[in-house]
């Protein structure tokens, strides 16, 4: 069977599965819509959280980034996993004990202030909307490459599927589809990795294969890779830093703190029955995430090695362009891969030296998507990768859309503007908000605004510099007052966004940056994407200082904080107040 047909069948089967789940898991109450009724088993929630968390960026882009940055790619590996330790110990159990539907709701109650709640809603919406644009683009790209439909059509199909299960089922539908999507994406990621590891090193476990010798030699894979990348002028694979050690440190910290502060991840922990389950569930989530995240560095190094071998089969012997493999031709058509035969010798030379390098463009994303083709794996594996990429993008998009929809219907409508609506009306409102959020995300996916390129900077910067510190202080420091919390959040976001804008342009419009996007004008050499951790430190400092000079929180708020610190007396998350 040809690849095209196989891909249609595989993607079609997974999509029918998601729709089947949507019909089975309809939501009948607000509790089901916001928190899946609060009865999800911790292991199941761990799996759903893993799919919720691992986005198109984790599935498609991350290994490619590591392949080209080598050790420098570490910031993503540690940064996007280490946050779960913070989540498990500092946030999840206490927020679960509090037992409400949304993150801004906790911030509003703990800081006894509607202003704090609205500020939190604004941060949440900004972070989630920018994040969801990336997922929509991922859906469009995966469709256009694998199913050869155009980008727009792909996006409409993706929106249609999410619409179906997110509007009907809310968190309940999303949870069960995320579990299915996790299974699809993890198989799609690990199966090619196992084959490739086996081919190169004889060891079927990629995590061990990466530390093994190449088949038929005594040379370790990583040593060989270090050697060949240096031969053509790149830095050593296993030791090249991203910027400086300081930058690596703060970038990793920003991603960790940002991870723990992202609302779409936090609300997943509201779906388990008990406080102790929230702790367990964070552990299981990280287990399921770690399966992909420890495989990714192996995929990265092996893909880079295979690519180099294709381009330069033996030293000084470059690939003849006319004899290039099929995958090379396929990806040239997409524009993600481009060559220019500068010396007209009919061969393609890959080099770190720009004046002689003839592989003028190779997009990071190719490394995962073309990996099975580069390694000459069977067509069904390639079809599975397409379904996996779509599962990763759709599962994250759905989680983000729920966080957005619930903050609009529950925090803004029910919480601030129309507290008198009954449950039925709120459920309807949440469905309408969800539909609106999907339409907005789709629109932004079709017409990506200029700032879409800075998505990661905004989402992680906002979560790290505003939401995480507010939540943590709300639980661990009884004396933080509403003035302190609001001033802290605003200061944290402002300094982070100011730093991003001054180097990348106001709202990322080119030419409006007032300090230039240059390494030498960065504060201690810290790149804008890594600045969220500095924003978080500013948030903490301002909140403590302001709380010192303003009235302490009222007695009943201090009791509330004491109460959420102990598991006893918890009940399933519900809407009653």
């Amino acid at each position, binding site marked *: 069977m040809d690849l095209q047909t196989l891909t249609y069948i595989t993607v079609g089967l997974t999509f029918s599965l998601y729709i089947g789940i949507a019909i089975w898991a309809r939501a009948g109450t607000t509790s089901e819509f916001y928190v899946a009724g609060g009865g999800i088993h911790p292991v199941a929630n761990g799996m759903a959280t893993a799919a919720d968390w691992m986005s198109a960026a984790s599935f498609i882009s991350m290994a490619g980034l590591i392949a080209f940055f080598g*050790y420098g790619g570490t910031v993503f*590996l540690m940064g996007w996993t280490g946050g779960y330790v913070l989540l498990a110990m500092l946030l999840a159990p206490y927020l679960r004990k509090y037992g409400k539907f949304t993150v801004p709701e906790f911030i509003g109650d703990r800081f006894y202030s509607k202003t704090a709640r609205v500020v939190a809603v604004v941060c949440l919406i900004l972070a989630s909307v920018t994040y969801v644009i990336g997922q929509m683009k991922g859906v469009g790209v995966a469709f256009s490459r694998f199913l050869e439909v155009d980008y727009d059509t792909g996006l409409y199909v993706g929106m249609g599927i999410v619409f179906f299960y997110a509007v009907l089922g809310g968190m309940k539908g999303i949870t069960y589809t995320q579990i299915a999507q996790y299974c699809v994406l993890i198989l799609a990621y690990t199966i090619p990795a196992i084959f490739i590891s086996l081919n190169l090193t004889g060891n079927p476990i990629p995590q061990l294969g990466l530390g093994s010798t190449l088949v038929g030699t005594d040379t370790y894979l990583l040593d060989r890779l270090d050697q060949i990348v240096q031969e053509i002028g790149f830095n050593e694979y296993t030791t090249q830093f991203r910027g400086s050690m300081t930058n*690596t440190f703060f970038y990793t910290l920003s991603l960790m703190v940002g991870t723990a502060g992202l609302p779409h991840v936090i609300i997943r922990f509201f779906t388990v029955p008990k406080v102790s389950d929230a702790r367990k569930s*964070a552990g299981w989530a990280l287990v399921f995430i770690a399966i992909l995240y420890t495989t990714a*560095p192996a995929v990265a190094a092996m893909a880079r090695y295979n690519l180099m071998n294709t381009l330069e089969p033996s030293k000084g012997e470059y690939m003849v362009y006319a004899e290039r493999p099929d995958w090379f031709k396929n990806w040239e058509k997409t524009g993600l891969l481009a060559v220019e035969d500068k010396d007209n010798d009919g061969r393609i030379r890959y080099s770190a030296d720009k004046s002689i390098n003839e592989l003028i463009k190779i997009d990071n994303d190719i490394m995962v998507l073309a990996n099975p083709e580069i390694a000459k794996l069977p067509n069904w594996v390639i079809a599975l990768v397409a379904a996996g990429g779509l599962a990763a993008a759709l599962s994250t998009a759905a989680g983000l859309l729920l966080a957005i929809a619930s903050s609009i219907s529950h925090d803004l409508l029910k919480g601030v503007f129309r507290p008198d609506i009954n449950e039925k009306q709120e459920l309807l409102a949440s469905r309408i908000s969800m539909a609106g959020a999907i339409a907005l995300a789709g629109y932004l996916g079709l017409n990506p605004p200029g700032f879409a390129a800075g998505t990661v900077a905004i989402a992680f910067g906002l979560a790290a510099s505003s939401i995480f510190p507010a939540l943590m202080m709300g639980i661990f420091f009884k004396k933080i007052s509403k003035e302190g919390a609001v001033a802290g959040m605003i200061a944290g976001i402002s300094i982070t966004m100011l730093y991003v804008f001054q180097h990348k342009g106001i709202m990322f419009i080119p030419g409006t940056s007032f300090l230039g996007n240059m390494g030498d004008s960065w504060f201690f050499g810290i790149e804008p994407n890594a600045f969220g951790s500095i924003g978080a430190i500013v948030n903490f400092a301002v909140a403590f200082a302001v709380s010192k000079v303003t009235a302490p929180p009222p007695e009943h708020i201090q009791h509330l904080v004491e109460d959420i610190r102990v*598991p006893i007396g918890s009940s399933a998350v519900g809407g009653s107040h």
Partner: protein
Amino acid sequence: MSTDNNSDAKAAYWSENIRLILTLLAIWFVVSFGFGILLVDVLNQFNLFGYKLGFWFAQQGSIYCFVVLIFYYTKKMAALDRKYGVEEE
């Protein structure tokens, strides 16, 4: 139990929890930021099979440690919950 004893027990529970968190976060910091970033060049002088040790911590080892830390915390907290009688019914 009177209310005073009760809140004393809760305070003791909380301070044990804080001590545990600080200990585990110290380990969290050492295996990731310490071994994976700040000391990476030093550790890279040693090998673990075909891995340079610092590189292994950065791209593999730290993640395994994170998983172990969370499950250890979960286990210790379940014991603490019982010790102070604050577990859920």
